[in-house]
């Protein structure tokens, strides 16, 4: 739906009502920097962005941008509001309260808040940002424009759900526990199968459990453990002593210490400070995100770009998830330390048992005295809290000889006692093995659930890719066509979007002087990159041409050279003739191009006056020529006004010379681009005697009146130059006369009958150009 008007009242730069009135047509608006052009686009974005304007989202604008949206000098009792009128005569009205809250009413059928901002508004900085962004960011920016946002949301939610299942189920810990069990099984049973272990348990069950009633291996283990405890309790003191010694002998402290060292190696010195630092940052970021609303935009502290708070939260969470993996390594280390400390506690508690009452005293009398004293003085729980490498060395040095001595002492145990102790160890290990089967089955079920969710996500991603590639192909064709219009004959070809192999990425490829390049950032200049970004966004916008929504372009040609700015005019005329386009520019040169080349039936042209004060606000110039801007200064600074007119002639006559293919002497370096009005005008005057013609009857004759107007402007410009350089006291009538003469001189090239420029149409023989009605012509090369 086309727009008829946008009326602002105390909104951004506006004071009392100021109205942009395209009346359903396309419109080019020229305004010097700070004249208030962007205020109109901010109003459009405000509606689409549900009360937010992207470039105003910063720490100083307030929670609801209430410090940035209203005019800074809004008088008491006045309200900030705006209206947007549509071609169907409906009108949308936005009221904004002092605290930034807003209410939108009217034009419900248009559903403007549901428009896609990126297909409606393009600002210069957004073009540059897009090209500079990473391929993942391009994917995020473009996917909604492809209409695939819903699929992407579903796929991303499934991915996050899979991660959540992993976390909620404590899968990593379960896998760690299973791994520890596997190590224990390996130590006790080698590569024996479950069946072999169960058979071994069955044999022991026959020996120790007379009833022999249970068949299930895990239950047998549990009954066996009870039977073995009872059997040991019934032993003589001497035999119980042997069992206790055997318990010590069975400890493998070397393995336990090594496990801790291995875990420590994983968490080498550089990782720990990094994690501590990251956790600190993430905690602060997490606390910060808690204060943000979902739709709020913030400057990302990492990349500096404006992003949705929701995206930032997701990023913080993703970082936290990554740390979770490292935390799992910490868990492994904690488990290894736990096992070692349990071993130390076993040493300490076993030595304290009544069955070994005298043995430690015997050892104290010998070479192991210091070892016994160390274990007596050691608090294993304190070691668990802060286990250092020197502690590991102490454990190895002090405990290992005790275990070794116990093993030697237990060698003299009767065979049945040795067996009893060994069997107790085997039964305990077997119980762990059979219990682990349950754990393994649970892990398998959890992994199955995660795999199912991942398969669903993968299916959606396959579909996103397939659909995106189809859309990308269509858009790439448009991009390529537009690029050719902007850069005819340039050695940069085959410009197209593509999806790299990795998921969630889109980038731009091209052929540069015959060599394929995977990114425009490799070779293209800033101007070419911005030109490419413009092509991409215009190609995307073109896909919505059926909707007949307006397209707003805000200063998108800033980094373009004069030639390519002209090409954009061609592009708009060729590709967007059926679309309402509202162009804002501070480039007077380009505005002149637009005004001369675009069809006035389809396009309107307006000029904003220089901004004076917030209470005066945004104002339109009375007429639409750039000379009106010069006239603004007539009262206060006539010297400014006259000089402005001279600058306009430098630009405008340069355009005329280019269009009429005037042959000017070559100048070294960039002097070609710095020519003054005088060079152009002199050439036009000389060539014009034979080339500038107007029809009289059926014949073309020299356009004498036109040449006289050009001559008059030239003489006044020379006079102005002499006068202003010698005397600053110029008066208004002189400046006014100069401006009028310059305006009339440029009007020479515009047909008074059809209002078209003299270069509007090629006559077909490549020898001349003419206006639309053919009343005026310029013959090439006759001068």
């Amino acid at each position: 739906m086309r727009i008829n008007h946008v009326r602002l009242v105390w909104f951004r730069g506006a004071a009392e009502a100021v109205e942009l009135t395209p009346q359903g047509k396309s419109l080019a608006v020229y305004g010097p920097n700070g004249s208030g052009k962007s205020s109109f686009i901010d109003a459009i974005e405000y509606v689409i962005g549900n009360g937010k304007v992207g470039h105003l989202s910063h720490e100083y604008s307030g929670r609801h941008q209430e410090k940035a949206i209203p005019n800074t000098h809004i008088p008491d009792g006045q309200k900030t509001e705006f209206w947007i009128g549509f071609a169907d005569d409906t009108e949308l009205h936005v009221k904004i309260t002092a605290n930034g809250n807003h209410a939108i009413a009217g034009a419900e059928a248009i559903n403007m808040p549901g428009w896609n901002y990126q297909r409606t508004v393009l600002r210069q900085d957004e073009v540059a940002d897009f090209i500079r962004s990473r391929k993942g960011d391009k994917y995020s920016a473009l996917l909604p424009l492809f209409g695939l946002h819903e699929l992407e949301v579903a796929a991303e939610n499934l991915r996050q759900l899979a991660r959540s299942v992993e976390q909620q189920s404590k899968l990593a810990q379960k896998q760690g526990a299973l791994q520890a069990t596997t190590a224990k099984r390996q130590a006790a049973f080698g590569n024996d199968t479950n069946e072999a272990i169960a058979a071994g348990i069955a044999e022991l069950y026959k020996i120790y459990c007379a009833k022999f009633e249970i068949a299930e291996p895990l239950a047998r283990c549990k009954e066996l453990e009870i039977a073995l405890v009872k059997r040991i309790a019934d032993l003589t003191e001497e035999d119980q002593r042997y069992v206790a010694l055997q318990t010590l002998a069975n400890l493998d402290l070397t393995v336990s210490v090594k496990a801790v060292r291995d875990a420590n190696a994983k968490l080498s010195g550089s990782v720990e400070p990094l994690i501590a630092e990251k956790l600190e940052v993430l905690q602060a970021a997490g606390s910060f995100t808690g204060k943000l609303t979902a739709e709020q935009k913030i400057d990302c502290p990492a990349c500096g770009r404006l992003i949705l708070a929701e995206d930032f939260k997701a990023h913080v969470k993703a970082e936290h998830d990554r740390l979770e993996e490292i935390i799992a390594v910490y868990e492994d280390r904690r488990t290894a330390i736990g096992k070692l400390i349990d071993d130390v506690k076993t040493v300490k508690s076993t030595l304290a048992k009544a069955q070994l009452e005298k043995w430690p005293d015997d050892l104290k009398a010998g070479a192991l005295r210091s070892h016994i004293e160390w274990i007596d003085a050691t608090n294993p729980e304190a070691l668990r809290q802060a286990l250092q490498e020197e502690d590991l060395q102490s454990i190895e040095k002090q405990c290992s000889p005790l275990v070794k001595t116990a093993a030697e002492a237990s060698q003299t145990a009767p065979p049945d006692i040795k067996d009893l102790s060994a069997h107790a160890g085997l039964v305990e290990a077997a119980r762990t093995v059979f219990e682990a089967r349950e754990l393994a089955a649970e892990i398998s079920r959890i992994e199955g659930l995660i795999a199912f969710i991942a398969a669903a996500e993968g299916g959606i991603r396959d579909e996103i890719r397939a659909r995106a590639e189809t859309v990308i192909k269509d858009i790439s064709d448009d991009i390529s066509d537009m690029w050719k219009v902007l850069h005819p004959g340039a050695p940069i070809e085959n410009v197209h979007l593509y999806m790299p192999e990795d998921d969630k990425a889109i980038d731009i490829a091209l052929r540069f002087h015959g060599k394929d390049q995977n990114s425009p950032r490799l070779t293209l200049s800033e101007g070419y990159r911005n030109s490419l970004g413009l092509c991409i966004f215009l190609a995307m916008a073109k896909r919505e041409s059926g909707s007949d929504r307006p397209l707003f372009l805000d200063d998108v040609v800033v980094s373009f050279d004069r030639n390519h700015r002209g090409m954009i005019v061609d592009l708009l005329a060729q590709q967007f003739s059926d679309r309402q386009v509202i162009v804002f520019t501070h480039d007077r040169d380009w505005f002149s191009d637009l005004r001369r080349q675009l069809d006035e039936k389809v396009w309107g042209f307006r000029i904003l006056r220089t901004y004076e004060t917030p209470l005066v606000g945004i104002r339109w110039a009375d007429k639409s020529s750039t000379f009106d801007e010069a006239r603004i200064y007539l009262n206060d600074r006539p010297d400014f006004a006259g000089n402005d007119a001279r600058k306009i002639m430098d630009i405008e006559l340069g355009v005329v010379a280019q269009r009429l293919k005037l042959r000017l002497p070559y100048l070294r370096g960039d002097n070609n681009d710095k020519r003054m009005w005088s060079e152009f005008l002199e050439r036009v005057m000389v060539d014009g005697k034979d080339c500038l013609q107007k029809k009289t009857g059926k014949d073309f004759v020299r356009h004498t009146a036109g040449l006289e107007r050009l001559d008059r402007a030239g003489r006044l410009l020379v006079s102005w130059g002499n006068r202003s350089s010698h005397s600053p006291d110029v008066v208004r009538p002189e400046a006014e006369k100069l401006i009028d003469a310059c305006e009339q001189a440029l009007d020479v090239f515009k047909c008074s009958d059809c209002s078209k420029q003299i270069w509007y149409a090629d006559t077909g023989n490549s020898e001349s150009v003419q206006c639309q009605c053919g009343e005026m012509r310029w013959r090439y090369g006759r001068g």
Partner: protein
Amino acid sequence: MNIDDDWITKRIDAALHAQPVADAIASAIKNHLRGAMRERALKPAELAKTANSLLTQVGDPPAKESAQ
């Protein structure tokens, strides 16, 4: 692109083919895809609640591929 019921059923059946899970789990994911899961990024608390709900059903027998 709209995610309609047919599309969801097709996707979940394909996922079931790759990795069978309990009927209740497949149905739950389908229901989520019909709701908020396709509309907006789910909050961590919502994800955790859904995950816990699914985990209570991981021990159930696998669904048939064509199950709705």
